[in-house]
């Protein structure tokens, strides 16, 4: 695909990430921070997020398998994970985090398990979408400055 097409593709991919609720306003904040001194800032942040969150998820997984379940600990982990997810604006992931915490409050182990699975799925999906987006963006070349989703 030629440059123009690539760029258009990138724009569309980006727009759909917002439209489909994967990302929120925070992502735009990151884009606005990107400048000449940090031309790949957003991607760096996303990479950093995925690296750290992977570890967090493992910890939560382990905690979930323990019986009896320590809900307060789980809640604490999830609180942390939620904060981390908020850094890149991972909207759907955050929603699952919130759901998980509610189940923790209620002491609902089953609910936690289910939500955790959904959370992992969202987490993985977003990762794929972002990777594709960043790759396309690199191919397309420097894009125009971040623009708010319509």
């Amino acid at each position, binding site marked *: 695909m030629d440059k123009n097409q690539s760029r258009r593709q990138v724009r569309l991919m980006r727009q759909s990430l917002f439209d489909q609720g994967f990302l929120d306003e925070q992502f735009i904040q990151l884009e*606005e*921070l990107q*400048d000449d001194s940090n031309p790949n800032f957003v991607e760096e*942040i996303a990479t950093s997020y995925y690296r750290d969150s992977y570890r967090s998820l493992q910890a939560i997984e382990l905690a979930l398998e323990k019986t009896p379940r320590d809900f307060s600990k789980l809640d604490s982990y999830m*609180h942390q994970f939620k*904060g*981390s997810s*908020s*850094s890149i604006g991972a909207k759907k992931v955050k929603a699952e985090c919130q759901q998980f915490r509610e189940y923790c409050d209620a002491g609902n182990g089953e609910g936690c398990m289910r939500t955790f699975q959904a959370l992992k799925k969202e987490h993985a999906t977003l990762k794929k979408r972002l990777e594709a987006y960043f790759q396309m963006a690199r191919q397309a070349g420097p894009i125009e400055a971040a623009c708010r989703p319509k």
Partner: protein
Amino acid sequence: MESSFSSPRNDSFPAGLRVLVVDDDPTWLKILEKMLKKCSYEVTTCGLARDALNLLREKKDGYDIVVSDVNMPDMDGFKLLEHVGLEMDLPVIMMSVDGETSRVMKGVQHGACDYLLKPIRMKELRNIWQHVFRKKIHEIRDIESHESIEGIQLIRNGSDQYDEGYFFSAEDLTSLRKRKDVDNKYDDKDFSDCSSAKKARVVWSVDLHQKFVKAVHQIGFDKVGPKKILDLMNVPWLTRENVASHLQKYRLYLSRLQKENDIKSSFGGTKHSDYSSKDLQGILSVQNSINIQQNDVAHGSYRFSGNNLVAQNADPKSNEGDIKGIVSEPVAEPKKGTTGNIPDSQKTRSSQMDFNSSYAETQKGLVGNVPDSQKIRSSQMRVNHSFASVESEVNLTAFDSTIPATYSWNQIQLEKEHKPLIQLNNGFSKPPLPGPQHHFQADQLQSIPSISSRPSIPGEDVTGSSKSKPSYSEYTNHHGSHVSPTISATDSFPGQTKSCVVDHQLSETISTSTSNMKNQGINLSTDLESAQRNLILGSTSPFASLDDEFQICWYQGDCYGMNLELQNVEFSEYTDPIHVTEVPAHLYDALRFEYPCDPSEYSVLDQGLFIA
């Protein structure tokens, strides 16, 4: 020069602000670093609270502000917050993805200047410099209050200083500011200049703090006073003011701890939600006082909340009235003659509540005013001015016209006996600042008069009638004279109020406050400093505007004044005109300036004002 206050150089100020960011999440750390760098701040990041504390301790004056996450693995963010507040006295901003009211309240209680929710927007970070600025202003005032004692003498002799100060004009402010070296630092682009410009800030290391705590325990908490502590600590380079200010903070800290439990319940009763959380923190002691008042009103305990201080004397009820009165006092009637104002304040209990709100406003004014009193010197004025200018130049001018200050001063004179009131005022009753709203501003200009004039506490409207410092009425009872609400000049109280408030709320016992008062009274002069400090400490953003103002006022008036009796005792402390006038200093000047009263009157006023 233009005071950076009045016209901050957007291009330079507040560039270079040295921020220390603490967060265990590396992703957030990167983002925050980038955001702050975009604001032209100097950023240092830290992944662990321990590391952060080490960094802060190593480079005593190496940072201007700390931004920290609440949830960290190695140390609770709130703990870090307290350490920083006690040891380094830096403004701290908390962050969290959790915005639950209880958490935010906790943050405020522990002394946070602000509480940001994640995800954090860049525009939120852009304005964090205000917390640094505010603190510096308060510190200056604090320092100046000491100077003001001497300054008072000077002022008496020459009112030209005031002339400059009083007539609030951009130029005056500017000139005042110029006089103030401290202010200069703001002019500088480099924030770090501030440290050098102003007096070296005492850093309370762990050892030093341990010595302090030991001394406090040895003396006995209720008998404690900066002088005693200082003697026991046996640290040659430490001054009474340093100790007083630290004591203030410490008191707040303790009351906070104590209140945490009580507050839950008491806060429930507090009408002012914003106050309740804030109170504890002593965001501005004033605020606390105000809140406390509210609580007090509800509980019938210390009304001190600010107004009460004056009235507080042992009579909680009266406190309410006082508070009201104090609030209402605000200078609304500056000219009227003190008596008029005061009585009103007392009357209205209900207005108290109003007062609280208005008080809060007044606090602003008071705050502004209070510092002035202390400053008496022109520098005060300057500070005030600068402050005022920052705050509201407009107000200042307003003040000038109202000259409420004088009014309040008169009241203060009447109050002479009140001394305690002054103390009280300190806490809550911001002495009727003339024209509450303005008071702050006016105070600044007037700085001296404003102290008393403050009563008008913006909120004053609350009491409406109470303008007259309710506390005043209280005093009247006690003293029979005008308990110049102005005393509420709460300036002095601020620091106290906080503590008082805290106590009050919890204990709802005046006695508690009384003891506070006592301590307050004795430490009045020193308390002012600490009060101010406390204020600063406490001053959280919520009341930011108020807080600042109140803080100033409070400092002056550490006197919690609750205990009239204390006042009498304290009075001796106050008798030292210079001493007393820490706060009133500017009041003094104001008085002098405004009304050529005879010196004796002023002294009384000072005391009264000081109370605030």
